[in-house]
C-alpha cells in the first residue's frame, strides 16, 4: 500500500485516495479545436519513470493534490497543492 503525503494532512494510506491520472494535461480553452480536446481527454504521455499525477484525498480532506511518483519504483518525490506545482 502506497503511503501518499497529502500536503494538508500528511502521509496517508493509498486506500484513502482516488487516483486522478496524469496531472500535467491541461484543460484546453473552451474554444480550442476538437483535436485539442480529444488530446486532453484521451491521450497521455504514460512515462516510464517520474510522473506527475492527480490524487484526490477522498477519505480525508477531499482536496486534489499533485503527486510526483516514479512509475517504475513507485517512489514518491513530491506532493503539491494544485497551483503550487513547481515547473
Amino acid at each position, binding site marked *: 500500500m502506497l503511503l501518499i503525503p497529502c500536503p494538508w494532512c500528511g502521509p496517508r494510506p*493509498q486506500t484513502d485516495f482516488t*487516483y486522478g491520472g496524469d496531472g500535467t494535461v491541461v484543460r484546453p480553452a473552451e474554444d480550442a479545436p476538437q483535436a485539442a480536446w480529444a*488530446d486532453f481527454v484521451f*491521450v497521455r504521455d504514460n512515462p*516510464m519513470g517520474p510522473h506527475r499525477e492527480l490524487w484526490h484525498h477522498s477519505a480525508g480532506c477531499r482536496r486534489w493534490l499533485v503527486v510526483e511518483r516514479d512509475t*517504475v519504483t513507485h517512489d514518491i518525490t513530491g506532493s503539491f497543492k494544485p497551483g503550487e506545482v513547481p515547473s
Partner: protein
Amino acid sequence: MRYSFLSLARNALTGHRDWPPAWRSPEPRASYDVIIVGGGGHGLATAYYLAKDHGITNVAVLEKGYLGGGNTGRNTTIVRSNYLLEANAHFYEKSMKLWEGLSEDLNYNVMFSQRGVLNLAHSDAQYNAFGRRGNAMRLNGIDAELLDRDQVAAMVPDLDCSPSARFPVRGGLLQPRGGTARHDAVAWGYARAADARGVDIIQNCEVTGLIRVGGRITGVETTRGVIKAPKVGLVVAGHTGHLAAMAGLRLPIESHVLQAMVSEPLKPVLDTVVTSGAAHGYISQSDKGELVMGGDLDFYNSYGQRGNAPALEHVVRSIVTLFPRYGRVRLMRFWGGIMDMTMDGSPIIGTTPVDGLFINGGWCYGGFKATPGSGWVFAQTLAKGHPHRLNEAFSLDRFASGHAIDEKGAGPIPGAH
C-alpha cells in the same frame, strides 16, 4: 520432430536425448521484411500467421527478455468471446474459433479447456444487462446461456448462493465454449511453429529506438544492433506507450498493474471459470490444481510489474465471500503484470501516422483470449498494409472521431475492460 504420443514413447526409449530444440536461437540478420517487436503470444502469433497465411517468412520477432515473459506468461488465462458490442463480438469470436483448433494447428498441446465461463449477476438489473449481452451474443452467432440462481448453484456448488449473502447471486451468464488455456504453452507453441516456418525468434534483444526516415519507418535500434525492415509491428502490451513514444507518438493508453495469484495445488474442486464484476474477482482452477485468481487493477500508472496489498486483498475478500469453502486454502504466490489500458477498454490494432509502423496493443486485461485472433488479423494488416474487416473498428483514430468501443460505458478512464 512432430509431437505425438508415439514420438513421446519412442523418445522414452532413448532417454529423451534426441528431442530437438523447440526453436532456434539465431543471430539477428541485418534486415527483414517484417520486424515484430515483442515475443509475447500476440507477437509470436502474428509471425506465425504471416508465415503460414501470407507466405512472409523473412520475419524477426524481437523480445527483450524471454519468450512469453510479459503478460502472456502472467495472466489468468481466461478465454471467452462474450461481448456486447458488435466489433468486439465478431473479433473475439474469430479468436475463439481459432482456439478450437489451435493445438492441432500448432502441433503443440496448449491445453485449451472449454469448461465454461460464468459471469455472476447479483441483482435484477445486472441479470437483465447480462441477458441483453447474452442475447446480443446469440444474435451475433455466439453461444450464451442465461442461468437463474438454481442453475448457477447446481453448476458451482461451492458458491454461496444464499439470499442473505452480501451480494446475493441472482443468476449468471454462461458461455459454455469459454474456458482456459495453458498460457506458457501458447507462447511456446506459436514460437515453435513460427520457427519451423523460418521466422527468426530473437530473445534478449530489446528495441531501444525506432528508425524513421521522412515519416517512414526503416528499422529498429536494439541492444543487439540496428536491424532494418520496411514494416515494423509493435506488439508489446504494457509497453506500447513507451515504444510508440520512440516514434514520437502519444497514445490513448496508460500502463497499469494488474495482479494475479495462485493457491497451493488442490485436487479438483472447481470446474468452471467464475467471475463476479460486482465483487471484483474471478477464479478458476488450473490443471495442475492451483486456484488462479485475479480482480481489479491497482489503479495508478505503473511499470512496476509488482502490485500492492489493497488490490490483492480485495480480490481475496471477494473470492472468500463468494466461496466460503476456500477460506483455509493457502495462497502460494502473487505477481503483477503491466496492462496497456486504453481509454475505452478495447484494443488498438492497425496502422499509425508513421508509414510502415503498425500497432497491436491496448489489450487491457483481456488480451490473452485474443491471442490467435489478434495475430491473425494483425498478420493480414501487416501483409496488406491495411486492416482486415475484423479489426477496422479498432483503429487509433476512433477516439478523436467519436467511435470509441466502450463495452462498459465507463468513459475515457483507462480502467475498464
